[in-house]
């Protein structure tokens, strides 16, 4: 009588563990990809998406988010970032191909900074609210301020430097 209960318990515990280990569920399905950025990047993307801000690595968002962003470039967060159709197609295809491969949620936010994984990694325990207001940081989207390798898709914890 006892054995089946123990077995059932062990089974359900390991199922839970497996679930927690599945990265996709850690942030309610809103997980960044691995790798964040392929070794070979697209030159058009680097040039066009890296002129006003760091070119954000494709694995930071799911494919559906990139499609939405690329469809609204003429009104892009208060800026006109429009491209011609050929450039747009090439960049969209590349972003979609290398988008987050661990995203399970149906949500497709337009901002990286609105994703669950980003908010967890950058919550008040990690970074005090005053830090975001420093002139050298200015915006949460200014990844480069703290992650010097952001333009290479390098966000390694050991290479973070928070500006004074």
């Amino acid at each position, binding site marked *: 009588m006892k054995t089946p209960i123990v077995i059932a318990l062990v089974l359900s515990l390991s199922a839970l563990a497996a679930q927690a280990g599945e990265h996709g569920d850690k942030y309610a399905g809103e997980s960044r990809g691995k790798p964040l950025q392929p070794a070979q990047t697209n030159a058009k993307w680097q040039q066009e998406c890296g002129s*006003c*801000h*760091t070119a954000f690595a494709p694995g930071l968002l799911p494919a559906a988010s990139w499609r939405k962003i690329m469809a609204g470039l003429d009104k892009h*967060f*208060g*800026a*006109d*970032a*429009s491209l011609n159709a050929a450039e747009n197609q090439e960049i969209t295809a590349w972003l979609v191909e290398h988008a987050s491969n661990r995203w399970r949620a149906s949500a497709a936010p337009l901002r990286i900074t609105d994703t669950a994984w980003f908010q967890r990694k950058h919550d008040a325990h990690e970074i005090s609210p005053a830090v975001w207001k420093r002139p*050298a940081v*200015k*915006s949460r*989207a*200014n990844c*480069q*301020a703290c992650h010097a390798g952001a333009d290479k898709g390098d966000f390694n914890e050991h290479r973070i430097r928070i500006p004074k």
Partner: protein
Amino acid sequence: MKKLLIASALALSLPLGAVANQIQVQEAYRAAAKQENPGFKDFSATRGQAFYSAKSGDTACATCHGDSPKAHGKHAKTGKDILPLAPSANAQRFSDASKVEKWFKRNCNDVLKRACTSEEKGDFMAYLLSLK
């Protein structure tokens, strides 16, 4: 004729090419300015300078490109570094017609909420090309 061919071949391959292209880009704006305004005479660096620093709302071209276009600028929203806009400090500027046109379209839209005229574009270039 032979000299001209050699010169244009060089223009395509050497840094010198940037200068030749800048002239071409500006001449295209001159032709368009004459079309848009039959009274058009010439571009003016003085008008271009005024245009560069004139605020529309709280933004001017200088807000991102800096008070001195020979120095680095800084994107007003994102803080990203912007290379100097003056060709004397950054030889590649105004040498790629489609890049120039793309950014006039975007930035005039963002700052002025309208397209710039060809005269405004040519004046702007005249100002930046006049900086030594």
